[in-house]
C-alpha cells in the first residue's frame, strides 16, 4: 500500500505546520481566510517555494521549483475557476499534452476514445467531441478531475469545488470522489461548507493563524467544537446575538422608508415595503427571485418604471445613488469585487470614500478626520490587518466586506441595505458582521438584509419577506417558532401553485 505522507515542519506564513495525507483518504483542510490554507496548498502544488521544512511524497523527499515538479510527483489540482481551455473540446482538454500519437501526428479518434475511458471511470457521460464551454461548470469540474487522472495523479487537490454547484451536482462530485478514494487516490478537499466537509471527509486538519491546530477524524469533533477550533473562541458569540424576534419594533410613526407599487420591467413586479427605525427586514428567496433587483431600484442604482418611494413620510425621487445618499440611505452590493471595493486604493481611502463622495470634491476630508474615522472602524469592526495604508486588494474577502461596511456606516445612514454581506467570507468574519448589524439595529438603524443563508435571515430579522419570481409572496413577523423549513416550504408551495 502506497502511503503518501507530506510534512511541512516549518514554512514562512505557515509556522511549523505538519500535515499528513494518506492514499485512499479524503482529507479536508479547514480554517478561516488568513489561516494559511491557501499558502499550504500553494506550497504543496509548487506555486510557492518553502523556506524551511520538508515535503515527502511516497516516502521520498521532494523539492518543488514550480508546478511542473509537483505534477510530476503526482499532485494535481482542480481550482475553483476550473482552469481548462474553453475553446477546445472535452476530449482535447482531458488529453491535453498526452494525446495518442501515431507516425503521422496525433490520432484524434484514439485520443477521444481514450478520453471517454477516463471520463467513464468517473461516471461522467459526455461526448468528448463536444465543446467544453457547452457544459455546465459542474461537468467542467469533473472533466478537470478526469484530466488529473490522465496525469496519473496520486494526490488530488480540490480547491473550493462546490461554491457554484447545486445539490445534485454536489452529489455527483462526491460520488466521483468516493470512486477515486477506492482507487487509492488521496484527496485534499478545501471548502467553507461544513455540512459537506462532514459528509464527505475521513480526516480534517484545522489551521489557525498559520499554525496547525490539529488533525482529527471526522467523527471526533462535533460541529460546534470544530468551529471553536477554527475561531479559537467559543461559539457563544454567534449564539449571543439574541434571537431577533425578541425585540419589538415601534411601528406607530412614519417608517424610514415606504415603498408602494415599485416596479421595473423585467426585474420586479409592483412591490410594497415598509422599514421602520431599528428594524431589520430580512429577504429570503432563491437566486433570481428579485431581491437584489428590488433593493437596487430602491437605492437608485437602477431606474424604476412605476411606484412611489417615501422617506419619513415625504415622497422622494431616488433615481441615482447620489439622491439616496442625500437621504441617508446606504447600499452594499452583493458583488463586492465589481461594485464595492476600489482595489488599488488603501483601506483608509476606501472607508472615507462614502463621506468624501457626499461632501463633493472641493471639501477634502482632512487627514486628521480621516485617521480618526478609519481608526474607529478598524477597531470596532476588527479589520485585519489593522494598518490603514494597505491596499484593498490585499485583504481577505471578509475584511474587505468589513471595510465596505465601514464605508457605509461612516456616512451615518438611517437605512442600510445589505445584499449578501456574508457571502464568500470565513466564519469568524460572518459572525462579526452579523453581530455588528444586530448592534446597529438595536441603536435605531433601519436595515434591509438579503442573504441566501436562511439561518442568518432568521437570526437577525424582525420581519421576514419572502420573494419568488420577482414578487413578494409572503411577509411575516419573525417568530421563535419559525425555522428554515417553514421558509423553504413557503417558497416551494408558491412554486407548486
Amino acid at each position, binding site marked *: 500500500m502506497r502511503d503518501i505522507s507530506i510534512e511541512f515542519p516549518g514554512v*514562512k*506564513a505557515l509556522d511549523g505546520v505538519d500535515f499528513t495525507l494518506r492514499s485512499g483518504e479524503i482529507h479536508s483542510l479547514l480554517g478561516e481566510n488568513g489561516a494559511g490554507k491557501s*499558502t499550504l496548498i500553494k506550497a504543496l502544488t509548487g*506555486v*510557492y*517555494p518553502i*523556506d524551511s521544512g520538508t515535503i515527502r511524497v511516497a516516502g521520498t523527499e521532494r523539492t518543488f521549483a514550480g508546478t511542473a515538479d509537483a505534477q510530476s510527483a503526482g499532485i494535481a489540482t482542480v481550482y475553483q475557476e476550473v482552469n481548462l481551455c474553453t475553446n477546445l473540446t472535452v476530449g482535447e482538454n482531458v488529453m491535453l499534452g498526452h494525446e495518442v500519437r501515431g507516425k503521422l501526428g496525433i490520432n484524434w479518434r484514439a485520443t477521444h476514445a481514450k478520453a471517454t475511458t477516463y471520463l467513464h471511470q468517473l461516471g461522467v457521460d459526455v461526448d468528448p467531441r463536444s465543446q467544453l464551454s457547452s457544459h455546465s461548470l459542474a461537468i467542467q469540474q469533473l472533466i478537470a478531475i478526469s484530466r488529473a487522472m490522465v496525469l496519473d495523479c496520486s494526490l488530488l487537490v480540490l480547491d473550493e469545488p462546490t461554491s457554484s454547484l447545486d445539490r445534485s451536482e454536489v452529489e455527483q462530485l462526491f460520488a466521483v470522489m468516493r470512486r477515486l478514494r477506492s482507487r487509492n487516490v488521496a484527496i485534499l478537499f478545501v471548502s467553507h461548507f461544513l455540512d459537506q466537509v462532514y459528509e464527505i471527509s475521513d480526516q480534517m486538519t484545522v489551521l489557525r493563524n498559520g499554525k496547525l491546530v490539529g488533525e482529527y477524524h471526522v467523527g471526533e469533533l462535533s460541529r460546534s467544537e470544530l468551529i471553536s477550533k477554527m475561531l479559537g473562541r467559543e461559539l457563544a458569540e454567534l449564539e449571543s446575538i439574541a434571537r431577533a424576534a425578541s425585540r419589538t419594533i415601534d411601528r406607530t410613526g412614519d417608517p424610514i422608508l415606504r415603498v408602494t407599487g415599485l416596479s421595473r420591467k423585467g426585474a420586479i413586479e409592483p412591490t410594497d415595503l415598509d422599514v421602520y427605525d431599528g428594524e431589520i427586514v430580512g429577504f429570503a428567496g432563491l437566486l433570481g427571485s428579485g431581491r437584489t433587483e428590488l433593493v437596487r431600484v430602491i*437605492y437608485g*442604482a437602477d431606474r424604476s418604471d412605476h411606484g412611489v418611494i417615501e422617506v419619513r413620510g415625504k415622497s422622494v425621487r431616488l433615481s441615482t*445613488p*447620489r439622491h*439616496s*445618499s442625500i437621504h441617508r440611505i446606504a*447600499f452594499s*452590493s452583493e458583488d463586492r469585487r*465589481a*461594485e*464595492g*471595493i*476600489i*482595489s*488599488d*486604493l*488603501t483601506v483608509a*481611502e476606501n472607508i472615507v*470614500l*462614502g463621506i*468624501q*463622495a*457626499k*461632501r*463633493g*470634491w*472641493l*471639501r*477634502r*476630508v482632512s487627514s486628521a478626520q480621516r485617521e480618526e474615522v478609519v481608526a474607529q472602524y478598524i477597531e470596532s469592526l476588527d479589520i485585519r*490587518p489593522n*494598518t490603514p*495604508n*494597505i*491596499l484593498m486588494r*490585499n485583504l481577505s474577502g471578509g475584511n474587505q466586506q468589513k471595510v465596505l461596511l465601514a*464605508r457605509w456606516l461612516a456616512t451615518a445612514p438611517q437605512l442600510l441595505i445589505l445584499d449578501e454581506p456574508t457571502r464568500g467570507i470565513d466564519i469568524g468574519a460572518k459572525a462579526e458582521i452579523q453581530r455588528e448589524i444586530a448592534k446597529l439595529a438595536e441603536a435605531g438603524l433601519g436595515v434591509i438584509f438579503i442573504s441566501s443563508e436562511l439561518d442568518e435571515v432568521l437570526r437577525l430579522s424582525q420581519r421576514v419577506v419572502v420573494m419568488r419570481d420577482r414578487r413578494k409572496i409572503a411577509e411575516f413577523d419573525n417568530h421563535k417558532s419559525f425555522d428554515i423549513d417553514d421558509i423553504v416550504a413557503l417558497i416551494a408551495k408558491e412554486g407548486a401553485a
Partner: protein
Amino acid sequence: MGALVALVLLNTISRPSFLSITVKNGQLYGSLIDILRDSAPLMLVALGMTLVIATRGIDLSVGALMAISGSVALTIVSRSSSPNRIGTILVAIGIGVFITLLFGLWNGFLVAVVGIQPIIATLVLMLGGRGIAFLITGGFITTITSTPYAQLAQGHLLGLPVAFFFSVGAIAIVGVLVRKTALGVLTESVGINPSASRLAGVRSRGIIWSLYGLSGLLAGLAGILYSSNIMAADANNAGLNIELDAILAVVLGGTSLAGGKFTLSGTVIGVLIIQTLTSTITFLGVPPAVTPVFKAIVVIIVCLSQSKRVRQYLGRIRRIRGAKRPIRLSGLETEVLAERKTV
C-alpha cells in the same frame, strides 16, 4: 527618474557644454534652459492628459485644440488697433483659451453624458479641429507683430524663460487642485472601478466631464505658447502629433493607460525625458525623418525597464546563477506593507 539622469549624462559626455549655463544681460542661456523652455507646451498638454487617462479615457484632440487657440488669439490681435497693448493680449489669450475650454467640455459631454468611447469622441475634434482653426483665420496663416505676445514664448522673466513659468504654474495649480482637494482621489476611484464609485455616491459624470474641459483649457494655453513662438497661427503644424508625445510622457511617468492611479510628478519627468531626447537627437545631427525611430527605441527601453515581468525575469536569471537570496513567498508581504506613493 533614472532614465532622465541617464540621458543627461549621455548628453554631457558627448558634449560637455550641455550642462553649461551662461548669463547674458541678466538672462540665463544654455541647453538645459532650452529644454525647460521648449518643453512647456508638451508639459501643459501632458498634465491634462494624465488626468483624462486616469479616468480610463484619452484625449486625441489636444493638437487640434492648440491650433484653434492660436488661431483665435492671433486673429483677435491682428484685427485689433493696438496689438502692443497688454490688455489686447490678455483678451486674446483669454478668449482663445476659453474657446478650447468649451471644446474640451464638448468632449467631456460626449464621453460622460452620451457615453461614447473616449477615443472616438476626441477623434472627432482631432480630425475636424484644424479645419475649424483654418476657418477662424479665413484660410490664411495669420501673422502678427506684437512685442508683448512674443514675450510669452521667447521672453525672459527673472532670468528664466517665461514659458518655463507657464510650466511651473500649471504644475503647481494642477497639483494643488488634485491633491489638496479630493479631486485626485475621486478621479482615481472612478478610474479604478467606475461602478463601485457610482454606487458609493461619487459624481463620476461631473468629474469626467470637467477633466476633459481642463484638458481642453491646458491645450489652449499650449497653443498660445506655440503661436507665440512662431508669431503665426499655423493650423496645420500647431501641436502636430503632440497628443502622442503627451500620451508617451504619461506612460513613461508611470501612469497606466488602463486608468486609476496616476502620478503628476511622473508625467513631469516623462515630459523632460522626451524633450531631452529631442534635444539629444537634434544635436547628434540625426535627420528629422529618422527622429521618431530613435524616440521609439528609447521609449521601448524605458518601458521594458519599468515592466514588472522584465524585472522578475532578470531577477530570476540572477537567482539561477547561484546568487544566494532568501526565497520569499511571492513577495506577498512586500506588497501588503507598501505605502502608496502620492503625486
